[in-house]
């Protein structure tokens, strides 16, 4: 409880979200298999690929296979994917927890698909769209934000990607370097909350 309270406080204090070099807070969110997941439960990882994504968004759908491939490639290297659905299902029924379970099963997600049910985690991180990536690197026990942005530079066709931003960023961390670019942008679906309802 204290942990959740602290997390909320931090969220309110830094409403703007994370910048590169910031220490990322842990979260405790429900996975599609019913278990509660937090990053502190992971032993022997070098970091995390945190991706805010959802069921309904065409950009998210376009990247599902690529996110699975990223998890398969980097989980064994110490950078597992954690996918988080930040949307309010009252705004988008397709993004309900039940539909998350169906989507994860149908697509064969190899990674946790977590539900930000209270919509507290995405503003803490500063996610604004789906998909939106935050690459965290474990440094002296803390998780430090080292890359924020897009997965690559062609959402429509994986075979025509010329800049694999996220892969390059993870590779840079694995080699002991710093991702460059650290920030990238992509078009995506806005995150749906009640405040955005007009």
């Amino acid at each position, binding site marked *: 409880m204290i942990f959740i309270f602290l997390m909320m406080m931090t969220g309110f204090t830094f409403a703007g979200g994370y910048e590169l070099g910031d220490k990322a807070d842990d979260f405790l969110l429900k996975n599609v298999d019913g278990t509660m997941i937090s990053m502190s439960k992971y032993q022997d990882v070098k970091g995390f690929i945190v991706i805010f994504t959802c069921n309904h968004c065409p950009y998210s759908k376009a990247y599902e296979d690529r996110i699975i491939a990223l998890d398969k490639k980097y989980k064994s290297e110490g950078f597992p994917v954690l996918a988080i659905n930040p949307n309010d299902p009252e705004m988008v029924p397709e993004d309900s927890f039940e539909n998350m379970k169906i989507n994860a099963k149908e697509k064969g997600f190899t990674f946790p698909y977590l539900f930000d049910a209270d919509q507290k985690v995405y503003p803490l991180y500063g996610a604004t769209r789906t998909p939106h990536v935050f690459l965290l690197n474990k440094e002296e026990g803390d998780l430090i934000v080292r890359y924020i942005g897009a997965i690559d*530079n062609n959402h*429509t066709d994986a075979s025509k990607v010329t800049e694999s931003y996220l892969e390059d960023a993870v590779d840079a961390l694995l080699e002991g370097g710093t991702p460059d670019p650290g920030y990238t942008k992509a078009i995506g679906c806005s995150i749906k909350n009640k405040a955005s309802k007009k």
Partner: protein
Amino acid sequence: MTLKKIITFFLLLGAVMTVSVDAFSQREQTIPRMDFETFEPWLNQDNDTVYVINFWATWCKPCIKELPEFEKLNATYENKNVRVILVSLDFPNKHEERLLPFVADRNLKSRVFHLTDVDANKWIDKVSPEWSGALPATIIYKGDTREFHEASMTYEQLKSIVEPKR
């Protein structure tokens, strides 16, 4: 070729032509597909017109919801110094399948462009450094004065921004 086949051919040809003529007559505007370089001058017109440029997509629910607000603005200021441009970010391969029928069905009167440049990291900051890339997004400018909104907008909001610039 038998006579029957020839007749069938012409009947089919006739049907295809009828369908295309119908589709064409419904389409009141042609929607150009453009890369960012072609589109960019529309962000930097230096004249007395107020440009209201909305980034949207047919699959984006909040975008669809606010389209009538932009249409109303466009109708209100028709032939005045306000120009509404709706820039669709539908996937490039959805031009015929989704965008054209959508614009025809809704009978959109504002000018529609289809920005098909997928390499968005190269151009999002050129639209506005404030833009994270989420849809909908709107830029309103006249000459050097401009403002950017990454949010849904109402007609009243749009009007209150446009009026002082005119």
